[in-house]
Structures are given as structure tokens and as C-alpha cells.
């Protein structure tokens, strides 16, 4: 019989916790990270199919990829059958592959669980289904945790958002995929707990009398809201839960769309669909790395040669062909995080042919995400009313998750519930800690 741990498999960050000797221990899984208890949900697969997660993955990716050489070769990938009224023929399909590509970096893996269409991806010669990708990540988390605990881990309580999707079938499919991945990773017993409920369990440890609590779990991928009665484990009751698929990565995308595309030719390039398509792909973190093809290179060179916004398009070329996408998204995320502490920051990136300097203010950011803010406020109020309570009947609002630190949302919660009721939990570890408590109960 092995140990039973709690794993918070988050969109941006993950964590592993265990409840031992009446204490919660969030394990320092990623010794290379500034906060070792937090592991970036990033998987790097090298061309010889070695797998790395967290900060180690990031460092290896940087080491192997930035400004590296490329060599495109034409590879046969399959064939297409053409059926016409009176004819049928088969055509071979080729793609250009970069044979010097040392590895493939994957982030926002959890977001793929929300997607109806995403089934997996080709990594060099192997196809990784979504379940394979997640199980690879979980397996490495398990191995690191076992290394720290010196004992086999057999069971896991995994966190899951209240709703992966508004569509019940997709929601069920996402949980099934996650369950399957955990089994493939080597966990013999797998159970689930809602992430906000897990965060509540951790908060409950600090209570000495029952309270109506709203858990505002706002991470990298989703906002999860849960209203429940806490304080007495025997009378714990969930009044309502809700959520929306808006979170940190959507804000990053909004910043890129509203503030960054002009640095790559938006507004200057017109009537050139190929180039416009490249520009409008920038906010899509999954598609941008795929743009580094000879065709895109030729399109860009043609446009630059035609003196069509040459400086901006050189910057776009540099972003795509120097593997700067990851650095770019990181820069955007840091810009957003900086605005939680200060009213003004600089979005800055200086690389070969790429020089971004954008003075960005908190009021600009709030304007850029205004639409999301309104949607979030609506969902919040819907959830409160679904609980059958009025806002003043909520005794405490517990914020957790990285995005919950964004001031505009704190202000929103303060305005609705009163500043004295809004409490900050450990933004990265409270869910992990709660899952560890739940894992102990389930084992």
C-alpha cells in the first residue's frame, strides 16, 4: 500500500501535497524554481524522447532553441484521396519539417482539456494523444515526489475545475481523459475533488466557527466559484458553484491583441492575406511555433523586399524564426503580473531585429480586459444568487490562484462584499494543500 497524495494540475502551475502527521506538506518538487513548491505546467520533449517538466524544461528549451539553426526537409506525411463525379485519384502529402529541431515545448496543457477538437499532437515521429501528454507530465511529477518521499505513491486526489466546459458531455470527457492519464502515469487509485472545494478545506483549518464562504479560484485557465458552508466538517455544505473559462491566459491574449500586434505590422500591412494571417496568429500560443515554415519565411521576405512595413515584419520574422515565442509570452505574463503591484510598467523585449517598448498602465490593462471583467462579474452574481443568498450573507471571500491578485478583481470583490470580508489565501498552494487533506480522507 503506497502513499496517497493530492495533485493540483493547474493551467500555469502545478503542485503536489501530502498530509502526514496531522500536517499538510506541499512538496518542493521543482528545486530549480524560485518557489520549489510550485512546478510550471510545462513539458519539454526532446528529439530523443526524453521528457522534462517545470523550470528544468524551460531552461533546457532556452538552451537548445533560442537563435538555433534550422534545416527544413520535405517529408511524406500521408496521402489524400480525391473523389470527383467521374474520377478518383490519390495525392501524396508532404510537409516541411525542421530536422534540426531539438525538442518540443508544451504549455497550457490543461487548457486542451477544454477543447472539443484537440486530440493530440505529432512530436517528431510519434503521436502524443492529449492523454499521453498529461500522463507524461503526471508521471514525472509522481517520480519527483517519490524521490522526495522515498516511498511509492499509489493514489492521487486530483483537482479539477467546477466546469471544464459548459457542455456536460465535454466536461465529462475532460475528466475521463484526466482520469485515464493519471492511471497511465502509474497511480492505482485516482479520485477527484473540485479545486475551489480543495482551497476551502485549507481555509477551513483557520476557522473556529461556521461561515458562508465564497471561494474565488482564479488561475491561469479558468475562474471557479464555489459558495459553501465551512467550519464544521460534519455540516459542510455546497450551496452553489459556477465558473467561466476566462483567466490569466485570456488576459495575456488580450494584451497581445490590443497592444502588441502593432509591433509586428498590424495597421501597416494591408491587402496581404498571408502576412495578415501570420500577424493574427501571434496571440495563439499553440499555433505560433508552427509558423516557422519555409513558406512563411518566403512570404515575409517577399513583403519585406516590397518595402511593406519592413522593420515590423523583420520583427515578426525574428519572433517566429528565432524561437522567441516562449520568451514573448513570458514577457507578456510578467507585464501583467507587474501591474498587480504598480500602476505602470514597461513591456520590453529586445532581441535581434525585435525591439518592443510599450509603456503599459493599469488603466489600459483594465480597459483591455473590460469585457472579461463584465463577464466575470455576471458569473459571480449568478453564482451568489444561485446559492439563495444575498452578497451580505457571505461571511468571507477567499481568493486563490495567480489571477486573483489582479487589483481590478480585488476591487470588484471589495465593492460587492466589503473589503473586510475579502481574504487572500496562498495563491499558488492552497488548492494543493486542500487536495492533500482530501487525499488523506480518501486513502
Amino acid at each position, binding site marked *: 500500500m503506497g502513499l496517497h497524495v493530492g495533485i493540483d494540475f493547474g493551467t500555469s502551475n502545478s503542485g503536489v501535497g501530502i498530509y502526514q502527521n496531522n500536517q499538510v506538506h506541499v512538496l518542493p518538487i521543482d528545486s530549480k524554481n524560485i518557489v520549489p513548491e510550485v512546478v510550471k505546467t510545462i513539458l519539454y520533449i526532446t528529439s530523443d524522447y526524453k521528457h522534462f517538466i517545470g523550470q528544468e524544461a524551460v531552461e533546457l528549451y532556452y538552451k537548445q532553441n533560442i537563435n538555433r539553426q534550422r534545416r527544413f526537409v520535405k517529408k511524406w506525411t500521408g496521402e489524400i484521396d480525391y473523389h470527383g463525379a467521374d474520377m478518383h485519384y490519390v495525392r501524396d502529402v508532404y510537409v516541411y519539417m525542421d530536422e534540426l529541431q531539438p525538442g518540443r515545448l508544451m504549455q497550457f496543457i490543461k487548457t486542451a482539456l477544454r477543447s472539443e477538437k484537440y486530440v493530440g499532437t505529432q512530436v517528431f515521429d510519434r503521436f502524443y494523444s492529449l492523454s499521453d501528454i498529461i500522463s507524461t507530465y503526471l508521471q514525472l511529477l509522481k517520480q519527483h515526489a517519490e524521490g522526495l518521499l522515498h516511498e511509492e505513491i499509489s493514489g492521487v486526489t486530483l483537482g479539477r475545475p467546477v466546469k471544464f466546459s459548459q457542455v456536460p458531455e465535454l466536461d465529462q470527457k475532460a475528466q475521463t481523459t484526466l482520469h485515464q492519464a493519471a492511471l497511465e502515469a502509474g497511480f492505482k487509485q485516482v479520485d477527484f475533488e473540485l479545486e475551489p472545494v480543495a482551497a476551502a478545506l485549507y481555509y477551513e483549518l483557520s476557522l473556529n466557527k461556521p461561515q458562508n464562504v465564497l471561494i474565488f479560484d482564479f488561475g491561469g485557465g479558468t475562474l471557479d466559484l464555489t459558495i459553501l458552508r465551512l467550519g464544521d466538517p460534519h455540516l459542510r455544505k455546497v450551496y452553489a458553484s459556477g465558473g467561466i473559462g476566462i483567466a490569466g491566459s485570456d488576459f495575456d491574449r488580450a494584451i497581445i491583441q490590443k497592444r502588441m500586434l502593432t509591433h509586428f505590422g498590424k495597421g501597416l500591412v494591408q491587402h496581404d492575406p498571408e502576412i495578415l494571417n501570420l500577424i493574427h496568429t501571434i496571440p495563439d500560443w499553440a499555433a505560433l511555433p508552427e509558423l516557422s515554415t519555409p513558406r512563411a519565411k518566403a512570404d515575409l521576405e517577399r513583403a519585406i523586399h516590397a518595402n511593406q512595413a519592413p522593420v515590423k515584419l523583420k520583427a515578426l520574422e525574428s519572433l517566429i524564426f528565432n524561437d522567441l515565442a516562449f520568451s514573448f509570452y513570458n514577457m507578456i505574463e510578467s507585464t501583467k503580473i507587474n501591474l498587480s503591484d504598480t500602476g505602470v510598467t514597461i513591456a520590453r523585449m529586445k532581441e535581434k531585429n525585435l525591439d518592443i517598448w510599450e509603456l503599459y498602465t*493599469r488603466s*489600459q490593462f483594465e480597459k483591455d480586459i473590460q469585457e472579461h471583467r463584465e463577464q466575470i462579474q455576471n458569473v459571480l452574481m449568478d453564482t451568489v444568487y444561485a446559492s439563495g443568498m444575498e452578497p451580505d450573507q457571505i461571511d468571507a471571500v477567499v481568493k486563490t490562484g495567480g489571477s486573483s491578485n489582479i487589483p481590478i478583481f480585488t476591487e470588484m470583490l471589495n465593492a460587492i462584499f466589503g473589503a473586510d470580508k475579502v481574504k487572500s489565501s496562498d495563491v499558488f498552494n492552497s488548492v494543493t494543500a486542500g487536495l492533500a487533506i482530501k487525499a488523506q480522507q480518501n486513502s
Partner: protein
Amino acid sequence: MINQKKIDEWIHEVEERPASAALIIQYIANRLSELASREEELAAQNIELLSGRKVDEYESRIANLEYQLELLKRQLGGEINFPIEMPANKPRIETVNLLVFNPLGLVMRGEMNQAELASGQTITRISGGEPLGDMRPSILVTPSQEELLLLFDSGRTLTLPVSQLPLLSLEKLDWQQASIYEPSVKEELAAIHPIAKMSLYETCIQVSRRGFVKKFKTSFLATHITEKYIGTGVKLPADKTCGLTFANKSELFVMVSQEGYIFSMQADQLPVAIEEVIHLGITDHIVSTFITGSKPSLLFITQNGKAVHREVRWIEPASSFRTKGQAMLSKERRDAGTRLVGAAAVDEADWGVILHSDGTLTVHNLGELLAAGSVAAGNQNTSILCFSGFHMPERKG
């Protein structure tokens, strides 16, 4: 691009949070300063373009490439026809040449007869050196088909093939008959270097007598050569450049001082700006620089004729600059006046030429010299002035 809309948004931020005003001003001021220096750079580039200097620079680069091609041609012994075909049955006529030179720019070339060389043999005695006083000469042994770089302490350079130096009879080397590559006023000939193979190396390391070093890419050196100026390579007024060494990035660069201190470091860790890598005593100076390459042994020659042998692995590479260096001589020997006159990475098949203070030149098989431990030839009352190792070309049938 900053436009009115953005400025309005910034003003809106300041209205909402007055504390942001100071930050905005600070960020914009920093950016303005950054852009101002960038603009200056661009204006300078523009002037270069308008004045045609950029064109000159590219022409010079082309000339430099042509020059390197010429060097390769000389190495291959003729015109290059593309694709290159090596002349299979055409033996290269290559002899071993001995160059003796001094800081006044006097250079003598003699040809050594490979077939007649025997270890310990006195090959000649240079005469006519008395009027030159303390102008300490140096020696270099080089193949006859080499290209030479004459490096003056002002940073000026001169290149010429070995064959262009007048050939003197080795038996009658006389300073009075030396060719003069006259330095300008206050200029001394610091070193002569073979450079035909420089394009095979990635880095060129310039060294000063007081232990200052800088490295640069050999492609830059080619540009310097075309410009006939390599830079003084010194920081202190009393210092002088003393030589160049070619190396690949991963090779171990070694520098030896007269008082027996050694500095060594992998070439790619050396500084690109002039830096004092070894802190020498006030009376000390660098006498030899080399890379260890694939050679197994190090040979140090003292002024009193000792040949000290160490294995290459004995060397302890430095991890920082301005080190005192690894001591080769004991304090007692140093206090007793023992000084190094030369050092090199060698193997047993290598040869060396030694110049004695009475003008005698002796040649030695280094395998035998390493075994013997001292330089036997020469007058016992003389001291050794300098040493140069060389690899004997294979004797053609």
C-alpha cells in the same frame, strides 16, 4: 509607436493614480535617452554610408578575403583551381629557415640544412652584434613557405612571405648584413609571427610584456592586417606588446614570465578587452606564450642552460584574472637569479634553436634535451638569450 490615443490613456492613468506620474516620466525619460543614443549610432552609420566609408570597409573586407585566399594558394603551392585538386606528384620544396631579429627591425634569414642537423650542434655564430648593445635579439624557426607578420610595439604591422627576406649564408650571419624593416620613430619590432595557418584558428590572442591580454577573432585580425594596424594591446605607458598566439576556443593558452610564473586559461575564457590576466612583479615580464595543443610536454629553458620538463597536465588553469600565476621556479632558485628565457609545448620529435649571449646558435633535438636536462653546447661562460622550438618537416625522399 506612441500616438495621441496612448498619451491620453497615460494621462487617464495619472488621473486615476497620481503615483503613476513619476513612474511614467521616469520610463519615458529612460526611453528617450536610449533612443537618443540609438539615433546617434544611426546618424554615424548614415554618415559612413554617405561618405563612402562603408563602401571602403566592404572593399577592405573583400580585399581581406582575397588576401586569405592568396595565403591558402601559397600554402598549396600554386594557383587554386576550383574544384581544388592537390598536385599528387609535385613535392613542395620546403626548407627550414632560421630568422634572427631584434627590436631595431634588423632581420636575418638563413636556411638550415635539414639533412645535416644533429642535436647539440652549433650551427653558427652571429657576428657584428656588439654595436647593438642591449638590443636583445629573438629567433624564429619557420618553413620557407610561410607568411610572416611583423608586429611593431606601436601596433603597426607588416606582412611578407619568408622568401622575400634576403637569404644569408647561415655560416656568416652578421648583423651588419641584416635587412632593415625600419621601425618608425619610437617604435620597436616586437615580434615576428608565422600567419599562413591563422585562418585555421578561431581566436587570436595579443599579449603584452606586463601580462595584459586581449583576444579577438582571427577574421578581425585579417582586417587589422589589411589596415596594417593591430592595436597596441597595452594599458600601461611603460608596457609593450610582445606577441600574438593563435588558438581555438577550447585550447589551453599558456603564458610564461621571466621569473617563472605561468598563467594558463582556456582561450574562450580570455578577455576581449585588454585586461591584466597575470599580476607580475615589478621586474618581471612575459617571455613566451603558446597553446598546448596536442603536445604532451612543456619545456622551460633557463638563462643558465637548464631544460626543465613538465607534463602538460601539471598546469593548473587559472579561474580568474590578475592572478599571481603558477610558480615554476622555487623561491630559492628565483632569488639566486635563475630566469626563464623561453618555453614551449613540445613532443620528443620536436627541435629547438637556442641563441647564446656570445652569438652562438645551437640546435637541439628536444627529446634528447628533455632527457639531458640541460643545454650542453655553447661556452660555459655565456648565458642563454632566447629559445625557439619547431617541428622538423618530414624529409622528402
